């Protein structure tokens, strides 16, 4: 009986575990890089939209409203961030930073949307500000996110801006204050700037909450969304 073989087998097994850890970490890093690249694209999209708006002003509302303000990348980013958060954990600094950037993009997009809707009277967007928490204090937030994901897939014109209520971001704090959103009754929904509505809402309840959905075209194609 040779003890060396026992030790060698242990070393090789540990090395395989180490390799598995390394590959998983590399793929997670790749995911983060993927998110960054999407965020860079969104940053340019938003800057482009702002510039377009400033160039055209209210002179050509049709041209503005035909180009969706919320880029498709923002939807994709939401789903990707959700996966990264699941894999790396909610406390991961990198994920938190990316979420902050994503939230800022959403706020900018939301402000731009409102500006356009104020100037272009024919442009009547339907949007929801969705405030959730994944700090373990909101059991229904995930289900609420599922309902909104489904609605967004069904109504491509519906804009959903989802925010982690507890994210330490001053711009988000300001938005929460402006919209009078309390953090102790999450999930919270602000539909088209109306007063916040709290608590989980099923698909049917949510459809009643947003009567404007009837004005939107439906689609069988699904788009990614999430919290």
């Amino acid at each position, binding site marked *: 009986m040779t003890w060396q073989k026992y030790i060698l087998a*242990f070393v090789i097994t540990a090395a395989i575990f180490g390799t598995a850890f390394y590959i998983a970490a590399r793929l997670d890093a790749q*995911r983060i890089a993927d998110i960054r690249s999407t965020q860079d694209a969104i940053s340019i999209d938003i800057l482009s939209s702002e510039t377009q708006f400033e160039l055209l002003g209210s002179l050509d509302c049709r041209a503005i409203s035909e180009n969706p303000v919320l880029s498709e990348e923002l939807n994709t980013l939401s789903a990707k961030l959700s996966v990264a958060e699941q894999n790396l954990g909610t406390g991961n600094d990198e994920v938190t930073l990316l979420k902050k950037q994503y939230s800022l993009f959403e706020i900018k997009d939301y402000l731009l949307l409102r500006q356009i809707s104020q100037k272009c009277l024919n442009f009547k967007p339907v949007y929801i500000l969705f405030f959730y928490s994944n700090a373990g204090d909101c059991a229904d937030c995930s289900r609420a996110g599922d309902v909104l994901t*489904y609605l967004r897939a069904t109504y491509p014109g519906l804009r959903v801006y989802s925010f982690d209520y507890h994210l330490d971001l001053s711009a988000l704090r300001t938005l929460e204050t402006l919209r009078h959103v309390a953090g102790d009754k999450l999930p919270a929904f602000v539909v088209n700037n109306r007063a916040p509505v709290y608590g989980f809402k099923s698909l049917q309840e949510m459809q009643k909450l947003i009567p404007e959905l009837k004005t939107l075209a439906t689609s069988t194609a699904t788009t990614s969304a999430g919290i």
Partner: protein
Amino acid sequence: MDVGAAGLYVCLFIALYFEVFLLISFFEKKPADKTTERPKHYPSVAMVVPCFNEERTVAKTIESLLAMEYPADKLEIVVVDDGSKDGTRAIAEGYAARYPQITYFYKENGGKYTALNFAIAHTTTDLIGCLDADSFAAEDALIEAVKEFENDPAAMAITPAMKVYRPRKMLELMQAVEYTFGIFYKKMFDNLSAINVLPGPFSMYKRGVFEQIGVFRHAHNTEDMEIAFRMHANGLRIVNAHTAFVYTTVPQTVRALLKQRTRWSQGFLQNARDYKHMFFNPKFGNFGVLVLPFGLVAFCAGLYTAGYALYRVVSLVATRVGDLYATGIPAHLPDPAHLSWYYLNTNMLSFVIIAVLGMTLVAIFLGSRISDTRLSPKSFVAYFALFGLVAPLWLARAAWGAILARESAWR
């Protein structure tokens, strides 16, 4: 990481460690290829066929022994009927009347080990072999076993390479892969001098084994395992003849498979308890330090992994059903956009599982090369789809039986 997942990592580490250990053993000493060489001497052999209600297969078993490439005057076929109530007696007596080298005995039913002991007491040959009445040996199997005894004079018992006889149904195909995997690890256990069982189909013993350590015991209906334990306890060497092929019929129904495997697994637990003094004892070599402890740990790890997987699947399904009910969202297929690599589960656990499965495939491949066995893709599908589902059932039943000290059933 939650405690459940941490436990799973421990189980996977142990499984991987064991597979790596066996692979190292393989590269240290690769099994020799089969040769046409003949033995220098032909010792006298008694092949014992213990049978109980085996009218379906006993004739084929006897025929396979008659067809053995071995001098007829050196080969005695001893059929011990352990109180059969079916047509076994008529078939075996018919053969005994026609062939002088066949002896038939009928005795009161007392269990397989009593039939084997009966044959040991009524024979005087140098070697004693056993061939269950549901198994058939290759024509050169005896020659190969005798050659192994010649190559290793210290060998006191030989185990064969067991294959599944004509696997067709999914459950048989699953077992065909499992037996091929078994051929690999049995050979590696041989490299480690730590073979843990002398299976009923075609294990061969030098008569000296029984003179030194006594005959077979009841041993919780696993006398073939107990005698291997007892041989290790007494420093007697067991060798694997990987070129001696024997084909066995395997259970075709889940019920029969569970009964057989529960008996094996429960037998291991109960024999391990009887021989607990050998655990981690370097005096008993790799058998005491690796094979026995690993067997017990693998048993527990298998149960834990199955329990954890079941818990996760049930939780996931319950959550999804609860979500669909609460949200009112119609059931729908996942978003096709989520089919990219990004959304795949690529955590460390996934890669560790891939490594364990990869090592298992390597072991099966080596087993098939050693034994010249061809496995169809369907066999692999059956193995990977079914084994994980049925194995935990017999592990759980065996654990329950061992806890209650309940007798496991033969059939």
